[in-house]
Structures are given as structure tokens and as C-alpha cells.
């Protein structure tokens, strides 16, 4: 293959050219800041574009227009959700927060930061497929519990949580519920009229939209305060000049996602999983087979280490991700794979393949072909491999 094969779409996606085209107008023509309706024409047009984008995105969640806050990233959205709720509810003397132990870093490290400030944090265990223990959640919620944050789907293994049930439990107990939907937004249906969730982190860069823009759904009536100081933008929750080209691009990116595309992507990941399981011995699928986001396939290859696999694949122009310690910036193995009880070795040998709009079926056969050879060669080297079954 001449061109590179990109299978790291959960890290980020390639921007769709059509999105970029839509955005250009707001860099070169309607580039004014969004002003009030009593200012000049350029500003009013910019404001209209911003509100129109907000409306488009709100509809995708079945939310009201003014329940979407634009932020700079999914990281910022989750920080605002968690720290903003804590800040606004200081008077309640509730000092307990619950998160799942396989959350992505924005939620996990926000919780850890609050823990350092004196909050009590419960890290909910998950089962072997990554599902949060619902009974444990019920048990852990007490009168001091202010907030629960459980992701909609997992960043590494793609497991989709039963957030409907979690949201209902939280609502019943009067606890605020946030979910990080960075990897599921537009790929899995999420309807805020059916699910009583209070806050949702949504992302643009994972759906072929631009970076530097993301959103936070804030249900009307949720007690939350801004965590950065500045102007009064975004309903006084997120100061700073609005990223209007970003918002326009984000909104258009949501419009370009179809049910058909999600099916196509699911077919690709299903096919890769099936082929790997059929043609390579001693592999294990990480996460849930049924309840997984369509773009995700995460597989551990026993006896070999992930960075060696990714580097070999890279030499064949294939980009994937791994939960191996060697790949991570902190030199620690994936907390997700270890969280599902996979142990260090399964974490180090895990490879995450994530698909997007621009992947094709031909690529799957090429990847499988290379992978078979690489795993065989690396196992020959491995002191842990005893020659197979």
C-alpha cells in the first residue's frame, strides 16, 4: 500500500474537507466576534452562526438549544463539569464524588485533584468487560455524594455503559450525574429526554470535526459555575472569545455522520476482530463483544509487547495505539486493561484499532496480513512464549 493506513481514530480523526470548507467563511469573511444584537452587522452574523451551530448540536442529543456550552476540548468540558459542579455546590457540605476507575484522564485526574483538595473520591470497580458494578454504585452513594461521573463509552476498549440505569439511580438519590461521551457522541444514540443525565462531554475531533472545539451539555437547572475567569460568554459558564469557525465546523461534522456510516464502521471493526481471532492464536478481545462503540477493536496478543507491535506496523505504514507502558507518557500500562482485571501483561500486549470515515475493507486484509507475520516473529523472540498450543 502506498498511502498510510490510519487506525487510531479514537485518538483523533482526519478533518473532513467539507467541514473545512464550511469553516473558511468564518475565518475570512464573517470573522468578527459574536456581539449582542445591538452592535454591528458582522458581529450579529457571527452570533447567528454560533447559535445556529449550538442548535444543530443540541438537536443531536435531543437537548434544548441553550443546554450546549462550547469549550475548547473534551478535557475542558469534563473539567468544567466536575470542578464547576463542585465549585457551585460548596455550600451543601457534600464532599463525596464517584467515578469509575476506567475513566479517561480528564475525569480521572479531575477527581484525583479534588481528592488532593480534601474531597472523598470513590473509584468504582468494573467487571471483566469494563461494565461498572451497578450494585456497588448504589451502595456507594450516600448523603454526602454530590456527583457521579461514569463515561458513556470507554476510550480504549469501547465498552458502552448502561448510563440510562446509572442516570436513573443518580436522579432517584438526588445526585448530579455527568457522563463523558467523547467517544460515543454521534456513534451511539444518546437522548437526554430518555436518560436523566445532567452533564455530557461531547467532542468534535473524534467525528472528523475540527480540534480546539468541544461541548458540554448542561441540563437546565444544574447547579454549576465557571472555573475560568473572564467575560460572560457561553451563558456565563465559559469565558473567552467564541470559536465560531470551530463551532460551525463541529455542527457540520455532526450533520455528516449517518446511520449508514456507523454501520460501515462497525462492519470494519467486526471483520478485523473476527479475522484476528480466526487467524492468530492466543489473542483476547478486550471489552464487550456486543456493547461496544462501532469504531473500536481492542485485542491483546499474548507474549508480546505492544510498542514492538506498533513500531513494526508503523514500518508498514499502519498507525495503531497500544495500552503498553512503553507507549505511554508516564511509562505505566493501561489503567483500563488493568481495571478490567487483565493484568500487566495483557495491558502491555494490547492493541487498539479504531476506525473512521476514511477506512476501507482492503485495509483490513492488508493489516491482518502484516499483523500475522509481526506477531509470529515477535513471539519467536519472547521468553514467555513456549511455542503455542
Amino acid at each position, binding site marked *: 500500500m502506498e498511502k498510510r493506513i490510519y487506525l487510531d481514530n479514537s485518538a483523533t480523526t482526519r478533518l473532513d474537507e467539507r467541514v473545512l470548507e464550511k469553516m473558511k467563511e468564518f475565518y475570512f469573511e464573517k470573522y468578527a466576534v459574536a456581539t449582542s444584537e445591538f452592535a454591528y452587522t458582522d458581529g450579529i452574523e457571527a452570533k447567528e452562526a454560533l447559535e445556529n451551530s449550538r442548535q444543530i448540536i443540541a438537536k443531536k442529543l435531543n437537548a434544548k438549544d441553550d443546554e450546549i456550552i462550547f469549550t475548547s476540548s473534551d478535557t475542558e468540558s469534563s473539567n468544567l463539569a466536575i470542578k464547576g459542579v463542585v465549585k457551585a455546590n460548596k455550600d451543601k457540605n457534600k464532599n463525596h464524588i464517584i467515578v469509575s476507575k476506567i475513566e479517561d484522564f480528564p475525569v480521572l485526574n479531575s477527581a484525583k485533584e479534588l481528592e*488532593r483538595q480534601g474531597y472523598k473520591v470513590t473509584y468504582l470497580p468494573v467487571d471483566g468487560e469494563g461494565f461498572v458494578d451497578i450494585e456497588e454504585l448504589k451502595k456507594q452513594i450516600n448523603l454526602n455524594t454530590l456527583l457521579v461521573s461514569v463515561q458513556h463509552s470507554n476510550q480504549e476498549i469501547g465498552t458502552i455503559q448502561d448510563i440510562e440505569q446509572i442516570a436513573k439511580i443518580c436522579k432517584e438519590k438526588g445526585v448530579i450525574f455527568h457522563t463523558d461521551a467523547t467517544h460515543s457522541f454521534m456513534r451511539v444514540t444518546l437522548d437526554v429526554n430518555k436518560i436523566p443525565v445532567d452533564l455530557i462531554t461531547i467532542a468534535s475531533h473524534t467525528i472528523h470535526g475540527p480540534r480546539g472545539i468541544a461541548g458540554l451539555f448542561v441540563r437546565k437547572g444544574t447547579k454549576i459555575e465557571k472555573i475560568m475567569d473572564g467575560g460572560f460568554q457561553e451563558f456565563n459558564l465559559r469565558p473567552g472569545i467564541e470559536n465560531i469557525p470551530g463551532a460551525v465546523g463541529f455542527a457540520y461534522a455532526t450533520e455528516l455522520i449517518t446511520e449508514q456510516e456507523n454501520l460501515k464502521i462497525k462492519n470494519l471493526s467486526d471483520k478485523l476482530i473476527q479475522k484476528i481471532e480466526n487467524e492468530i492464536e492466543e489473542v483476547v478481545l478486550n471489552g464487550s463483544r456486543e456493547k461496544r462503540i462501532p469504531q473500536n477493536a481492542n485485542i491483546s496478543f499474548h507474549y508480546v509487547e505492544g*510498542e514492538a507491535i506498533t513500531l513494526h506496523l508503523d514500518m508498514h505504514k499502519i498507525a495503531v495505539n497500544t495500552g503498553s*507502558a512503553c507507549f505511554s507518557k508516564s511509562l505505566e500500562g493501561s489503567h483500563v486493561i488493568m481495571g478490567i482485571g487483565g493484568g500487566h501483561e495483557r495491558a502491555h500486549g494490547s492493541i487498539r484499532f479504531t476506525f473512521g470515515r476514511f477506512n476501507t475493507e482492503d485495509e483490513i486484509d492488508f493489516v491482518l496480513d502484516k499483523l500475522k507475520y509481526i506477531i509470529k516473529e515477535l513471539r519467536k523472540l519472547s521468553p514467555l512464549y513456549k511455542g503455542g498450543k
Partner: protein
Amino acid sequence: MSKLPYSEKVLEHFRNPRNVGKIENPDGKAEEGSPACGDMVAVYIKVNKEKNTIEDIKFESYGCASNIATGSIITELAKGKTLEEAKKINWKMAADELGGLPPVKTHCAVLAVDGLHAAIENYEEKNGLIKNKEKTTQDTVIKKLKHVMNPMAGLDIVRTNIIKEIKIEEGIITIIINLPSNHQFANTIKEDIVEKLQNLWDIKEVKVLFSD
């Protein structure tokens, strides 16, 4: 050609590692690291007893590219050398021979060299050069800690002055590291220290504390 932070020589040894596999009935063998750390090297040697040289050497690796490449390079460096010469091979020589390693990957070179030294030690122990069990002192601990890398610098934690204090009391070693506990590399340094010290015969427990 490559945008990766590895030298051409590292990549070449990664693609085509030398002296791979096991030696049947080796004169010395050792395994360093563990699957838990994500890095493991096994070294096997055959010794020419008349010349006291390493006649044959093979290695196996479970680990990343630099682990494989350093395993490969130490076999080339050690082959044909006398045992005394081979003992003098250090991680710096292995890294230099490969055209350098990224700082966060230097621990791989340490692991490979430790594997080589441990295989020689294994041979010497089997052949009557048994060492006395010495009591663990500050010096023993510091010597061991010179094999724990500081991933920020690519040098060991002793040389980079991040050890604040070492205490040895009734079989418990307590080490205070001059980093906050939420530092990016805090956990990995802690695990590495525990791994290097926990097998000392007179040590029951290793505690690693941070500056906060």
C-alpha cells in the same frame, strides 16, 4: 528517513535482532525484568572454560523496540570477550553502540546489561565462586539504585540527585524521592526501585515515599 526517536541502528537491530533464542544446557542464564514491567530479557551464555571467554551468547526479549535492540547489541558486544571484559560492559556502552537511546528508554539498556551480568554471575555461582551474603548497607542500596533510571534525564536516579533520603532499619528500606507523588513518572520510578531492592536477602520490605 524515520521520524521515530530511534537511531537507524536501533531500528536495524529491532528489525533483525542478532543471536536470538535459547542455548541448550547453557553454562549461565538469567532473566531480568518481568512481564509486569513490560520489559523482560533472558540471556544465555556458553563459556569456554580454558580461555574463560563467552563462546556463545543468545537472548530473548519481551519488550519494546529498545529492549529488543539492546538485547541484540549486548550479545554482539559480549561474544568472544573474556568474562572480566564482559562484566565491564555497561549500559552506556550498549546505548552508545546503538547510536544513543531516547532518555525514557535508557532503562532498557540497563535491563539488557543487567541480564548479561546476571548470566555471568549465574555461571560463577554454579562453578564455585559463591559470594558471601553481605549485610545490606547504604552502599549496597545506592549501587542497586544506580540501575534505576530517571526517565526525565535518561540517567540513573542516583546521578540525577532525586533521592532525598535512604533509611535501612530492621529489614525495611525506606527511600524518599524528591518528586511530588503526582509526578508523571512517580509510579514507574517507585515500581522500578521496589523491583531492584526487594530481592536482597535480608530485606523484608521496600518503602518508597515522595516529597509530599
